[in-house]
């Protein structure tokens, strides 16, 4: 069989111009009209020779068994792998190893398939063999480092990453894993240097084809930057410049942009740079590209920020437990259409009632929150206002809520109110329901608690499953 150069009638390794000239000359003779078969053959060779090889890193010569049967098995393995059937691909590789021994190409395929199948331990074994057997091939060392990292051997991985990096290996995925590993091993500065080397290896011309790598690099930088003093502003500036210059190509990378955006906002918060002008510029660019998604992203970022603050708050010894779980319950109701008959509403009532009963003991909590947990304070504005209303008003609110609460408590468990204030629990039999409403409170079966398994059978806790959807 002829190779691509032979099909075009040129010498191996001919440059782009020669390839082009040969192609355009040949298709005059074998035009789509006159010889469509031949045209397609020429065209395919031309495309293969001129295509931008994104996976150039894997294109190395490997020992391959020469038997035709081995060839066809390899083909099958590749097809299975591309079709996403890693399990059978791996089976086929192992079968092939049974016939032809651990030929280089087969070991390599085995490693790849193991990794894809999630068998990280076995993948480590494969690459260890390859790296030992072919010490000159950096590809295997690089893969081995990544395999260690994926297996969770972070210490070993970091040493391996450093070694291979030192030898000059710069495969994009390798660099990204390396930088993440740096994050875990507490050397963010090193991670940033690694990502910068990735960033600078991509020039203007190949930018478009390497968009994914670039976005990954910026996400990584944005993640690490708050941990290196003074670094965030610089990274934000670079990121902005990048986004400005690549606007036209960004539309297809919705997912990556989302995570970049959220990461930047979180990091900006962490270093107290939320007002940074590059951050605002980045926000604007992303909103321009996705007018619909922009708001959603902003919302997602706010939510995340809130989550982080709530987590910190949960650890804060100065804040009362009552405040902690109340806020947790209230957070469940943010930006949702709350069903007046649902569990979230019940828990919201529960928190409000307890808070109202206890007020003003929590005044100190509110002070700390206002001072130190800005986002939380922002989000629960109405709640603070409610607490600080006049005594008479509070009393009336309590009265009203108690009725609602009593109704709902027949349906749900997990409330604190009657535990904390047993005397407030009404004699259920004595409560008169109006007949129409009464009908809606028929309880079928057991009450579902917040932490019970969800009745839908998903195996998740109720609070993490249907309760959210409900």
């Amino acid at each position, binding site marked *: 069989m002829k190779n691509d150069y032979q099909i075009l009638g040129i010498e191996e390794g001919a440059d782009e111009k020669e390839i*082009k*000239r040969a192609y*355009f*000359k040949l*298709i*005059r*003779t074998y*035009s*789509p*009209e*006159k010889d*469509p078969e031949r*045209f*397609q053959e020429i*065209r395919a060779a031309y495309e293969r020779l001129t295509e*931008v090889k994104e996976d150039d890193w894997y294109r190395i010569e490997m020992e391959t068994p020469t038997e035709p049967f081995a060839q066809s098995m390899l083909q099958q393995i590749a*097809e299975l792998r591309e*079709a996403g*059937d890693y399990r*059978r691909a791996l089976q086929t590789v192992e079968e092939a190893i049974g016939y032809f021994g651990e030929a280089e190409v087969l070991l390599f395929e085995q490693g790849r398939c193991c990794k894809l199948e999630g068998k990280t331990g076995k993948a480590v074994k494969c690459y260890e063999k390859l790296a030992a057997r072919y010490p000159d091939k950096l590809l295997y060392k690089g893969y081995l480092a990544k395999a260690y990292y994926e297996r969770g051997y972070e210490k070993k991985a970091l040493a391996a990453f450093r070694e291979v990096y030192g030898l000059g290996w710069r495969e994009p995925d390798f660099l990204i894993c390396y930088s993440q590993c740096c994050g875990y091993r507490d050397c963010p500065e090193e991670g940033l240097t690694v990502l910068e080397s990735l960033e600078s290896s991509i020039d203007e*011309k190949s930018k*478009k*084809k390497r968009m994914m790598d670039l976005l990954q690099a910026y996400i990584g930088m944005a993640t690490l930057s708050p941990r290196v003093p003074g670094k965030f502003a610089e990274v934000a500036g670079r990121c902005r410049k990048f986004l400005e210059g690549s606007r*036209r*190509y960004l*539309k*297809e990378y919705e997912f990556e942009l989302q995570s970049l955006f959220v990461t930047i906002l979180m990091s900006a918060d962490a270093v107290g740079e939320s007002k940074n002008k590059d951050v605002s510029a980045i926000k604007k660019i992303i909103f321009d590209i996705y007018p619909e998604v922009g708001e959603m992203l902003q919302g997602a970022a706010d939510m995340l920020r809130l989550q982080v603050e709530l987590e910190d708050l949960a650890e804060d010894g100065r804040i009362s437990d009552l405040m902690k779980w109340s806020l947790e319950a209230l957070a469940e109701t943010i930006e949702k259409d709350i069903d007046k008959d649902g569990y979230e509403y019940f828990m919201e009532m529960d928190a409000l009632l307890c808070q109202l009963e206890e007020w003003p003991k929590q005044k100190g909590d509110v002070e700390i929150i206002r001072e130190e947990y800005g986002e939380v304070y922002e989000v629960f504005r109405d709640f603070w206002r409610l607490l600080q209303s006049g005594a008479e008003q509070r009393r009336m609110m309590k009265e009203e809520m108690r009725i609602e609460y009593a109704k709902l408590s027949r349906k749900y468990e997990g409330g604190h109110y009657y535990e904390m204030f047993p005397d407030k629990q009404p004699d259920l039999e004595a409560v008169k329901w109006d007949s129409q409403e009464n009908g809606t409170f028929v309880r079928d079966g057991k009450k579902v608690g917040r932490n019970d398994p969800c009745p839908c059978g998903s195996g998740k806790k109720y609070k993490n499953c249907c309760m959210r959807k409900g």
Partner: protein
Amino acid sequence: MDTVIGIDLGTSTTEAAVLRDGKPVMVINFDGKVTTPSVVGMDDTGNMVVGEKAEGQLLLAPDRTVKEAKRLMGTDRKLPMGTRQYSPVEISSMILTYVRNYAGKFLGEDVDRAVISVPAYFDEIQRQATVEAGKKAGFTVERILNEPTAAALSYGISHMEEESNILVYDLGGGTFDVTLLEMFGGVLEVRASSGDNRLGGKDFDEKLTEYLAGRFKEKHGISLEGDIYAMARLHQAAVECKKMLSTQEEYRVLLPVIAEKEGVPVELDETVTRECFEGLIEELIERTHEPIDVVLEDSNMAAEELDMVLLVGGSTRIPFVQRDIADYLGKEPSFAVDPDYAVAQGAAIQAGIINGMIDSEEGIMMTDVNPYTLGIRTLNGYTADYMSVIIPRNVTIPVTKKQTYYTSWDGQTAADIEVYQGESRSVENNHRIGMFNISGIPSGPAGKEQLEVAFSYNQNGMLNVTATILSTKEEASIAIDMMQTGMEERVDVSGWKEAGLAEDYRTVIRRAEKWLKKHEGEEEAEEDYRELEELVYQLKRAIIDGDDLEAEELEEDIRSMI
């Protein structure tokens, strides 16, 4: 040598050209002009008129005149003209017949072979409709050529030595097309095509007409909307205004007696500035950006790598359009080809390539791409309507590609191969162009048996699909000929009452139509509605054809439904 004519069948204007001594020559029509308005009308004696005459009666008889039929090609919309309804294909074929006649006179010989250009972004149905129109006009349609490619050919033929990347920006009367081509060694290679086949000068006209009607209503409290005569005049004035604003800063629209108020004539007098007009069309112009991005992306090219931006189509005369392109691409556009003639000239060049007048070793040649993605429906684990791509859009044709699939459930012995065209990941949003079934798959567990599906698509619009069961080598296939029109032309059945059989079926038709009236627009009855509508049509047709047997059967079917 047999003459093959190149025709640019445009939304607003039509032109034709032929190759003479290796150069395209424009064909002159009966009015002594190159450009023929794409307008068809019925004059007051009941005769069909095409072109300038038809355009001339637009104002007097808008109900007997049809324009812009191209926008409706491939739909089953009907265009009323006089007492009858016409399909867009019929209207287009009248224009083409007219071209055939004047070309015959101009050239002194009958021409019956043609290359007809269509917007690159026309889909298969629209292309088929165009072929159908050509056939009805008595042409053998040798090739359907993409308009921007044609424009590039007309540029390329006099720039054979150049090595350049050319972006053709074609904004015409009804469609927007953008195509990126590479010129090298006298070969024009289309790298990518995209566009919007519902965007053009017509939309600008409508925006401006709407604006003028709105202003008039504000000032005088009179709505012109229902008055087709007034609207026709207003529309014409808007077109005039739009064109004038391409060369001057403002234009005064003056229509003396456009309406009446308490018996007193009211005039429309409105001065439109260029700025105001630009504000009206800004949003529409913005829609050109995405297709530009797509072609750059698909041809792996950055805007900076473009050597030339060629403007084609009447609407590129608008200064705002030129400015927008320059801003968006960072490159001044070029006027190297005649925006009105380039497409027809290119079609004539392609005709010359086909009939051998252009030497294939020495002269210009071209390769083209398929503008839409082709694939099949598959199960992907989440949905059953996943579009599995076999030939991606914008690959050079002819092309053959294959993909292997696995059986989806235990004991599966047959598979439906449904062929789709379109860009969505869900076939529901794409267009089904064919289907066949392959059976005889050996029964086994899911995923055991493999099916190889091969697509082969060529420049004549022929798509061959073959499915092979790999373990048994058994095959099934289908040939989808995009040039072979499978569409059945709807005939006008409004005269059924005059036919001899009418008396026998009058009652059933009346009842069926009553049913239709009652259930019109009801969602639950939608399917029945469509079925009954079709049956009634078929029955009327049978009545006209005098086919009693068929009519009887149809009557029974209809009765069972109402």
